[in-house]
């Protein structure tokens, strides 16, 4: 093989292996929003696993290097094991996400993990030969010679890249990719619509880790050696830079980024001749260019060369069976909202909440929540009637929002219990309550900003087949039909709230009022049994407030129960069957609005005038 040919082969192999790793990190960070600064550790784990599984016992090569285990596995088996080990390690690292930390704390924790891993390997020479590293790692194509071996390896890496891409797209595109992006955009909102964020994170870090392990194994099979200096935490930076330059969250952008960054700059410059007497000059120049590129893109083009597209391609009105009901609705767009209600061909809710049972849907028992020394909620007890709209009112600081937070599982109570549909849900996590039908909205809108309005609704659909493991494996054939049904339902909801024209708009571009409406629509999409609305009309125009009220009444007609935290008494009077008055964390009174108006102490405490 000539020098030039060798150069090209090396660059191509580096490109392919880096690409697999960059795709994996992009899935974790770019798409799912997990700042895994320890990613390179997973690449290293794959490389070491492959090395140890192919080198044989450490006595077999003269004993100049020592390591644990040692086997003569065939290439494919070693490759798969390497991938599996990194996937498991990735999932373990993902468990750190159980502690919900600020992203920069997470980044810092990952940094520590990365450096600790290096320290452990360097310190313990019994594990994988310490800082000297492993050498003589067999090339799977050792039977081939010269350029045949080189180009053979390039072809093999190319084929594996294609396979990895096919697997990757199952996670990064379509409904599953949409789900991950929703989690990235707003974790709490994802929890509120019943998404198990922790499980998703761990799954994503396992998949990303598997890709890292594959990348490391392929790399080490080619270069034949592996040591701690090959996987300093700064290498994660090279991958991150590739992602930022190429386009965060875009698989094809990452291809371009990987071509530019790690391959050409970090690896490419190392093949250039050394200038002068400073052997560090060339590699350092490579790093400096890398740093400048990163900063340049962060400043001037943070979306990268190929920006992230819409999570699911949007075809406005081209689906023929979709267009009809939309057009039918548009005729009524100018009419008042209420007049369209009786003509509704289908109910708003996909599943009608069980109305057969009587009694209360939710009970709050002696709820207490302390923040430091402050008792925000102080022994509140009340019930929510099935199929009713219950208002929760009281002066600012009365503990209404905290109570709502506890009911929905976002705040842990210091004492007391929450019973929903007869079951004790006091300790159930937020996402599980949402799945049971206890769904909240937020006082400050929390939209999935990078998703369109329609996608915001579609992603909230419960029990979607596309979000299951079977859905990822089965692909569109498994979930395609259901996806279409969900979209239809979402469009109907949009029509009902007269937001069809915003269907393809990214949610972050909506107005404040539209975001509020989206918040309620998204909650309705989850097929709730009890909806907890936290000041849904705050900041809405009188018209929109009225419209939202109509929607609440229509939903109640269909059997939905609603709890409404509200300051506007006119709205409360119009909508609520029962009103709970909270003062200083305690339930002060409960009854109908008309009833409460006659009670003097209530008037004095809250409804003055």
């Amino acid at each position, binding site marked *: 093989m000539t020098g030039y040919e060798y150069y090209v082969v090396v660059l191509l192999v580096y490109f392919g292996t880096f690409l697999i790793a960059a795709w994996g990190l992009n899935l974790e960070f770019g798409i799912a929003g997990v700042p895994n600064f320890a990613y390179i550790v997973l690449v290293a784990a794959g490389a070491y696993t492959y090395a140890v599984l192919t080198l044989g016992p450490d006595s077999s090569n003269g004993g100049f290097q020592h390591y644990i285990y040692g086997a003569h596995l065939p290439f494919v088996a070693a490759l798969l094991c390497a991938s599996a080990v990194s996937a498991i390690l990735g999932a373990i690292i993902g468990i750190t996400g159980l502690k919900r930390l*600020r992203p*920069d704390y997470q980044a810092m924790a990952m940094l*520590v993990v990365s450096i600790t891993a290096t320290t452990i390997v360097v310190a313990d020479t019994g594990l994988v030969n310490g800082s000297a590293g492993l050498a003589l790692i067999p090339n799977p194509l050792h039977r081939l010679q010269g350029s045949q071996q080189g180009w053979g390896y390039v072809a093999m890496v190319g084929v594996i890249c294609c396979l990895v891409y096919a697997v990757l797209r199952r996670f990064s595109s379509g409904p599953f990719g949409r789900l991950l992006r929703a989690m990235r955009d707003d974790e709490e909102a994802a929890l509120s619509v019943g998404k198990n964020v922790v499980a998703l994170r761990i799954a994503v870090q396992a998949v990303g880790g598997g890709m890292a392990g594959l990348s490391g194994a392929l790399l080490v099979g080619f270069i034949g050696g592996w040591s701690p200096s090959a996987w300093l935490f700064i290498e994660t*930076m090279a991958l991150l830079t590739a992602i930022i330059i190429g386009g965060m969250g875009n698989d094809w952008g990452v291809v371009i980024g990987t071509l530019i960054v790690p391959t050409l700059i970090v690896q490419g410059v190392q093949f250039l001749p050394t200038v002068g007497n400073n052997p560090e000059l060339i590699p350092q120049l490579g790093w400096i260019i890398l740093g400048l590129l990163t900063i340049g893109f962060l400043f001037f083009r943070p979306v990268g060369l190929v920006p992230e597209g819409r999570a699911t391609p949007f075809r406005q009105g081209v689906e023929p069976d979709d267009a009809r009901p939309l057009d039918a609705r548009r005729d009524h767009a100018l009419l008042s909202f209420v007049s369209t209600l009786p003509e509704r061909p289908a109910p708003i809710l996909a599943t009608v909440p069980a109305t057969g049972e009587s009694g209360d849907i939710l009970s709050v028992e002696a709820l207490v929540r302390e923040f430091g020394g402050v008792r925000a909620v102080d022994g509140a007890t009340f019930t929510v009637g099935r199929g009713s709209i219950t208002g929760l009112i009281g002066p600012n600081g009365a503990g209404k929002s905290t109570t709502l937070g506890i009911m929905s599982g976002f705040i842990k109570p210091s004492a007391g219990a929450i019973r929903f549909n007869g079951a004790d849900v006091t300790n159930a996590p937020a996402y599980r309550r949402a799945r049971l039908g206890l769904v909240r909205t937020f006082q400050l809108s929390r939209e999935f900003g990078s998703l369109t309005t329609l996608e915001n609704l579609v992603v909230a659909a419960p029990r979607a087949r596309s979000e299951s493991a079977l859905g990822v494996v089965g692909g569109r054939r498994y979930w395609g039909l259901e996806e279409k049904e969900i979209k239809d339902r979402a469009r109907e909801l949009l029509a009902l709230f007269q937001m069809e024209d915003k269907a393809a708009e990214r949610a972050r571009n909506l107005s404040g009022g539209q975001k509020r409406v989206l918040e309620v629509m998204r909650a309705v999409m989850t097929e709730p049994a009890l909806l907890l609305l936290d000041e849904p009309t705050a900041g809405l125009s009188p018209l929109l407030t009225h419209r939202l009220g109509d929607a609440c009444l229509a939903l109640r007609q269909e059997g939905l129960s609603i709890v409404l935290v509200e300051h506007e008494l006119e709205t409360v009077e119009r909508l609520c069957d029962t009103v709970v008055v909270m003062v200083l964390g305690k339930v002060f009174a409960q009854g109908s609005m008309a009833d409460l108006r006659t009670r003097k102490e209530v008037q004095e405490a809250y409804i003055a005038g």
Partner: protein
Amino acid sequence: MGVVVQTIGFGIAAGAVISLGAVGFTVQFGISNVLNITYGAFMTLAAYLGYWLLNRGLDVWVALVLVGLALALISVAFNRAFLSPLQRRGAGFVSVVIGTVAAGIILQGVIVILVGPGAITYGAQFGRTVSGLGFVFSVAQLIIIGLTLTLMLGLHLLLTQTKIGRAMRATSTNRTVARACGIRTERIIDLTWLLTGFMCGVAGVALAVTTVTFDFSLGATFLIYMIAAAVLGGIAQPYGAMIGGLVVGVASQFGAAYWSPAYQDVVAFTILIIMLLIRPRGLFAAAGVARRNLSAT
């Protein structure tokens, strides 16, 4: 018993330097809300600047103060020219972190190109040793311990007892509201970078004094200890960082003495990871700093 005391002594000496670096780092992070990875590279820069001044015949402690002042100005400029504009453009937490990593890479690269990759030394700057209570410290170590205590106490009092400190904390919690309340947040941020930049410079020189030889990777390697100390103590807590630094220092010395010198860092970082798992906001978490993103509404 003697070994235990001596190990604690070594730990305190090692921990003092970590604390010195961590106190500035943690306050910078806490008040300006930037996890500044460049801090390590700036310490390297400080160490080389100190070396340069030392070779001009200056006393090492004079050099330490001068370098501190230089780094104070450099840090303010760094924030004004780089980080603030980046934040104004809407870069998220993680993007800014990546920006500081990139800046650190560039600075380190420039240092290597200018001074070469070889190791240098300040020579013996330790002075004579002082012993008592079973501890043995060099004068230099005592000076560094004193410096750490003084700066930590000063920063703590500034943050908790003065109007400026209150303004700094207000700015950290919510910059927009702070500005609406009449706090000149730009000045407060400048002041934060000035103070922490000074501490960064001082820590860089102090680190070089206590290290036998060092090279361009000095600060980048050391950064992880400071992060460990800052996280252990809770972000934006000067005394937390100091105690965190001591914990890391003493733990690693015990690891070295009773297990193997090769494992001393493993011990320190393992403590940190366990800490992150059970009490992620640190021993003395500042209310309002680490919690902001997590509150329910």
